[in-house]
């Protein structure tokens, strides 16, 4: 077998189904250099103009935010081309330095800068709500982000055209009062939308739960913080207040931290990759291991689930062979199919944040290759065992149905006809008063019919105890006790009817145990107890005989165990030192 056959092929099936191509190294370099050029050039323009109050601080703050976005964006674009998050973060890296331009001396730069001054707020909101896939999942999230783009771009164009700063080349008229009003509306709107975004992050966390994996959880929390402080800053744009400097500092810190935390997320993947080694060691130590736990540990996702495809039965099962449905590709679970030789072998369901870590999933799936095959065989075996168990139950039940049908046929057919004949003979007897010899022969014939009826009755009863289906366990057990070979004490604590299979099993267990006592135990008395213990029906048959009964000894007792086990119950046999035997059967009847 070649190694390419051993390694399962991994095919992405949901989430970002369109696999975007990984960027070339040249594209990465060019983008990176362009980003550095932009931030350097804009910083130079702003610092050289003398308009910036504290040039060093201003440049430093913009750099603090821009550089992490550029770097994280490049890494994300390279490592996870499927996610739009990389390009989005790069966009943030390019747009953030635009905030420096309004301080430039050159009219053209200043004018452009004023147009894009507040755009970064919308991009940040976009990134935060789009993490981790880079896509906006919900309708409300899309509306919020689109509105924010509109507020930052359209309203800016309006206020600039109204002549917010008269020197702007795009100013059409000069009405500073109207422009100021537009700006106030704009800032109020942005503030509201940012808070709206923070609320959406919070509710998403409430509904979906914190992401199962630790680092993404930290990330989401820092996003919430950054959005709230950005919102506070927007209010500051309308009416500055004393503490605004502090909020500005916090916001800048948070804005720079967000991509840093995201970088940590990437490191988490590298950390996890070392666990692929751990997975291999675990699999090596015990090749029969059930894989779900080790895979969850290797991928740092406790919520990970594993499913196997059983082509023979045409179903998916969990590792214990229980049939399951694959979850639909929704927001909460990502799914990946693992193929071997063009046939699906297994599927993984995991936290969507893991969906970006393509390489890690590939590595883990490859490492688990042979073990997954083994796991599937085990799941198949377990599924077959379960099927066997339920077909055993079905066969038993079909047997009972058939016996019941036979008994019914005997009862309604032969037995009733014989009764009819017996009545006819009886009535003839009365008319044969004149001929004593004939009368005697009729009587004898009738007695023969009666004897046949008696035999038929005992055969029918052996086939199926009609009294059980008609009148329940308590009545049937009393009838058993009446005809037992030894005196029987009865303690029946149930009056209600139980599922038919349970009643039949309990009846036969009591019946066979009593028969066994009659044959082997040399007992003087026996006791039959039938009681409910929670969801169990407990049938206990004890005697004061010589003891020594065992499951392995007589086939009768093995039959008892079969009857109980087929219904998921069990039979315990105890032979205490003082003599006697207790057979205790526990049958689930919930």
């Amino acid at each position: 077998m070649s190694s390419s056959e051993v390694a399962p092929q991994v095919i992405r099936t949901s989430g970002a189904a369109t696999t975007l191509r990984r960027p070339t190294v040249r594209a990465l370099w060019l983008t990176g250099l362009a980003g550095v050029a932009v931030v350097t050039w804009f910083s130079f323009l702003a610092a050289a103009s003398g308009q910036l109050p504290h040039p060093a601080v201003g440049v430093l703050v913009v750099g603090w935010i821009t550089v992490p976005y550029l770097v994280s964006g490049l890494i994300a674009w390279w490592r996870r081309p499927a996610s739009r998050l990389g390009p989005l973060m790069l966009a943030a890296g390019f747009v953030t330095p635009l905030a420096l331009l309004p301080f430039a001396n050159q009219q053209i730069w200043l004018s452009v800068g004023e147009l894009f001054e507040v755009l970064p707020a919308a991009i940040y909101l976009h990134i935060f709500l789009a993490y981790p896939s880079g896509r906006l999942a919900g309708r409300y999230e899309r509306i919020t982000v689109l509105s924010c783009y509109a507020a930052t771009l359209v309203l800016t164009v309006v206020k600039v055209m109204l002549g917010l700063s008269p020197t702007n080349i795009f100013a059409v008229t000069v009405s500073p009062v109207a422009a100021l009003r537009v700006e106030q509306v704009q800032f109020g709107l942005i503030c509201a939308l940012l808070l709206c975004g923070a609320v959406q992050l919070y509710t998403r966390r409430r509904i979906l739960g914190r992401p199962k994996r630790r680092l993404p959880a930290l990330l989401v929390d820092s996003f919430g913080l950054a959005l709230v402080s950005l919102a506070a800053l927007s209010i500051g744009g309308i009416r500055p207040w004393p503490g605004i400097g502090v909020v500005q500092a916090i916001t800048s810190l948070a804005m720079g931290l967000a991509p840093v935390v995201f970088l940590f997320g990437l490191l988490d993947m590298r950390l996890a990759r070392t666990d692929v080694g751990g997975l291999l060691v675990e699999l090596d130590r015990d090749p029969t291991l059930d894989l779900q736990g080790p895979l969850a540990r290797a991928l740092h996702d406790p919520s990970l689930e594993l499913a196997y495809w059983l082509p023979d039965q045409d179903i998916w099962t969990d590792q214990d062979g229980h049939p399951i449905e694959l979850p639909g590709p929704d927001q909460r679970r990502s799914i990946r199919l693992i193929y071997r030789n063009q046939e699906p072998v297994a599927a993984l369901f995991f936290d969507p944040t893991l969906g970006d870590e393509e390489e890690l999933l590939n590595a883990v799936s490859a490492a688990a290759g042979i073990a997954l095959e083994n796991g599937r065989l085990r799941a198949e075996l377990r599924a077959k065992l379960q099927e066997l168990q339920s077909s055993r139950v079905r066969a038993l039940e079909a047997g009972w149905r058939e016996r019941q049908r036979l008994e019914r046929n005997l009862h309604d057919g032969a037995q009733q006809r014989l009764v009819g004949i017996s009545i006819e003979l009886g009535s003839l007897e009365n008319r044969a008063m004149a001929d004593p010899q004939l009368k005697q022969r009729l009587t004898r014939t009738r007695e023969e019919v009666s004897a046949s009826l008696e035999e038929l009755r005992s055969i029918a009863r052996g086939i199926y105890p009609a009294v059980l289906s008609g009148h329940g366990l308590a009545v049937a057990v009393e009838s058993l006790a009446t005809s037992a070979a030894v005196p029987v004490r009865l303690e029946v604590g149930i009056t209600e009817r139980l599922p038919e299979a349970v009643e039949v099993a309990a009846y036969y267990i009591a019946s066979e145990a009593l028969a066994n006592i009659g044959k082997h135990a040399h007992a003087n008395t026996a006791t039959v107890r039938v009681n409910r213990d929670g969801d169990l029906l407990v049938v206990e048959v004890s005697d004061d005989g010589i003891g020594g009964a065992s499951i392995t000894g007589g086939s009768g007792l093995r039959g008892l165990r079969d009857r109980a086990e087929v219904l998921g119950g069990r039979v315990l046999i105890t032979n205490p030192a003082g003599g006697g035997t207790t057979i205790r059967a526990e049958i689930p009847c919930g």
Partner: protein
Amino acid sequence: MRIAIAEDSIFVREGLTRILRDADLDVIAAFDNADALMREVRHSSPDLVIVDIRLPPTHADEGLRAAIHIREHHPQVAVLVLSQYVELALAMQLLADSAEGVGYLLKDRIGNVNEFISAVHRVADGGSAIDPKIVSALMQRRRSENPLVFLTPREREVMELMATGTSNQGIADQLMITTRAVEKYVSSIFDKLGIPSSRTDSRRVMAVLLYLRS
């Protein structure tokens, strides 16, 4: 005597009707299900109903339930239950707390026409008819401390007949002894077993059955 029958087997139903009519009893209706019998009871209040324990639709306990219902709600109607199997527990359910005007017989007893007709009369007159099979199973039931061993063979015979609902006269006829002798045996049995003696036949059936069952 007006009799209504519920019996789903046509052989048994027709045979039963014929022997009852031969004995000059008035079979006013014969049905194959319990519901029709119940309607007839409400409608015409017969003196006696004869009902099969297993009746359609489920052939489980429809007949017995109808019998118990009639005993509870129409005490003036005597009830004779027929069955392929005799079950002590079912007989006791039917008796509840009185053996008055009630019978529980195996179906092939009907073939012994004279005995069956006399059982019908006994039940209709407020007495009882318990199948000898039940009583003998109870008598033969092995007990760890069995007071029945103190009875003489004759006393045991008398006790078995007594438990089926047979009157002193009936016992005397069957054992070919005097009713006086029967009375003596009966009071001796009650003394030995410590059962309080009862005046009517059906009460004494109840007392003996309860005693034997315990």
